[in-house]
């Protein structure tokens, strides 16, 4: 309860209007003193962020411009400046394009899956009574809380070739070829398995966010729609979803960011990128190039490509949202 009380007033103070708030507040001490105190308060966090985030980001770009292998890392050979050499090698490499395709396809499936499951279950949760809803939320919180490594191992065990429950159930249902079927051998079933785990642990965020959004929609609006003869589906699609749009945008962006740079699940479930690297995604690829292949320059170039792509995708998505938001 207290949290609701404390977060509520904040809505009246959107970040867009900090100056009015500042002006309203009586000045305490001189502006100079405030600036000094602010600097003091901000310094620890600021120094840390510069040292461990900003500087490495600069270093990442820097490294990607050099031939930087084992010899350079141990100081045995001089640095060789390649300019964009790593990038041209990368773009000319068929493997990179395969990994890029893997990453985009895999992330798209995971994002759409999490959104679909999350939204459907949020709507479902809003229509049932207390007990089933609580059970659903507890189950979802459990999936959400499960660490990526633990979730990966459980799913791997459920789908294990020899001792997995899934194969036993499927073959018990008459699908004989599923007995002893290896889910991780084929590229697509391996991706499907990982995507299943990712959706399982990331839909709860979407569900909780959307459920909170649905609860915030005034009942009168929904009542008015149904008085006008709108069906439940129609009400959801034409009344609820448009009102939930801002939350949906946040959930989508969050999911894109998570799923595009996935590492743990792919690494654990496909044992470092699958047979002959068939299940590599950008993040795992960068890791393998750098730390397994001792090609740190190339790994950094992949890291830069990933960062830029993520930025571009997010910006495009936001633009599209704004565009359609204005037209409707």
């Amino acid at each position, binding site marked *: 309860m207290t*949290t609701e009380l*404390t*977060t509520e007033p*904040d*809505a009246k*103070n959107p970040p867009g209007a900090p100056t009015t708030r500042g002006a309203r507040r009586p000045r*305490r001490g001189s502006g100079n003193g*405030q600036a000094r*105190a*602010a*600097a003091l*308060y*901000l310094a620890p*966090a600021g120094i840390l*962020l510069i040292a*461990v*985030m900003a500087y*490495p980001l600069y270093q*990442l770009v820097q490294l990607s411009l050099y031939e930087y292998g084992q010899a350079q890392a141990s100081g045995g050979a001089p640095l060789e400046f390649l300019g964009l050499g790593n990038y041209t090698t990368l773009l000319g490499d068929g493997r990179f394009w395969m990994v890029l395709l893997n990453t985009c396809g895999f992330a798209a499936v995971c994002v759409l899956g999490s959104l679909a499951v999350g939204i459907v279950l949020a709507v*479902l949760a809003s*229509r*049932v009574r*207390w007990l*089933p809803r*609580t*059970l*659903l*939320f*507890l189950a979802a*919180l*459990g999936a959400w809380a*499960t*660490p990526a*490594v*633990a*979730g990966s191992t*459980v799913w791997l*065990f*459920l789908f294990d070739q020899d*001792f997995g*429950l899934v194969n*036993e159930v499927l073959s018990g249902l008459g699908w004989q070829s599923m007995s002893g079927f290896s889910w991780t051998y084929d590229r697509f079933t391996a991706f499907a398995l990982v995507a299943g785990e990712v959706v*399982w642990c990331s839909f709860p965020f979407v569900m*909780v*966010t959307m459920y*909170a959004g649905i609860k915030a*929609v005034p*009942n009168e609006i929904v009542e008015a729609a*149904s*008085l006008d003869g709108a069906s439940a589906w129609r009400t959801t699609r034409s009344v*609820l979803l448009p009102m939930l749009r801002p939350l949906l945008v946040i959930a989508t962006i969050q999911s894109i960011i998570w799923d*595009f740079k996935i*590492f743990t699940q792919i690494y654990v479930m496909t044992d470092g990128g699958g047979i002959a690297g068939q299940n590599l995604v950008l*993040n795992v690829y*960068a890791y393998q190039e750098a730390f397994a292949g001792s090609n*740190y320059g190339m790994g950094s170039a992949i*890291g*830069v490509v*990933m960062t830029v792509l993520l930025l571009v995708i*997010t910006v495009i998505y936001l633009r599209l949202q704004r565009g359609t938001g204005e037209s409707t």
Partner: protein
Amino acid sequence: MTITARGPKRGVTGRVLPGKRPGRTLAEIATVLVAATIAFPLYWMVLTAFKPAGQIQSTDPRPWTLSPTLENFRQVFTVDNFGRYFLNSVVVAGVVVLISLVLSFLAAVALTRFRFRGRTVLLVMILVAQMVPVEALTIPLFFLMRSVGSVAPWFGLNHLGSLILVHLAFSLPFAIWMLRGFVAAVPTELEEAATLDGAGRFRFTWQVLFPLVAPGLVAMSVLSFIHAWNDFLFAKTFIISATENQTLPLAILVFFKPTGNDWGAIMAGSTLMTIPVLVFFVFVQRHLVSGIAGAVKA
């Protein structure tokens, strides 16, 4: 929002057709079935952890066991130094939470309560920092920690300090952003009153403001804890040769063997790794959700 509140609150369309809803029973059955499906992997994990080896290495797995055993847990703790790894994970996550609590609170106070030039720029930078895919920074951070290690070994490669440093930094932007909303919600009149009572800025900050934003601090702590607790990539990259400094996620992978995975131990380890987060989640889920909602709103 509360998911546990019992009461007359009806579903969105619930109030529209009182009495006449055959669809709701169907929806409730579906909800329970879905909940069971979602929870099933967790059930299977815990069940397997308690199963004797013969029932795990079986081509005919049963969804129950009549002879539960602690053998897998014993295996995990004795054979591979699991207790040490568990402790390492606790230390890393615990220190990250404590320090990020103080640092993000200070920064949030500065960004909401003080007026100074460049404040808006800083706010934008904190937003941008949340967008950086920190996983991409593994390579430069590896070299950074390597050189830090030659000056201050405790924060270098193979030491827990390196993990604490990176997780601390990565949890700060969101933590600051989240706490900002909570700090801003505390009325400024309170500060005036405290000033009239003779409390200085420092005292006001720690004795009045800090307790008042507790719900935000709780939500923020959980998120930083989970972030550090779940980390696999950085632990794998930084802790190369000093196996005694490994953390839980890596320890579990020890039981994956080319000669056949020890599923009982893997599931026992995974269960032990999941429980602290689960407990945390259940206790604070209300704060967590309102905290996220607050951050989203801000």
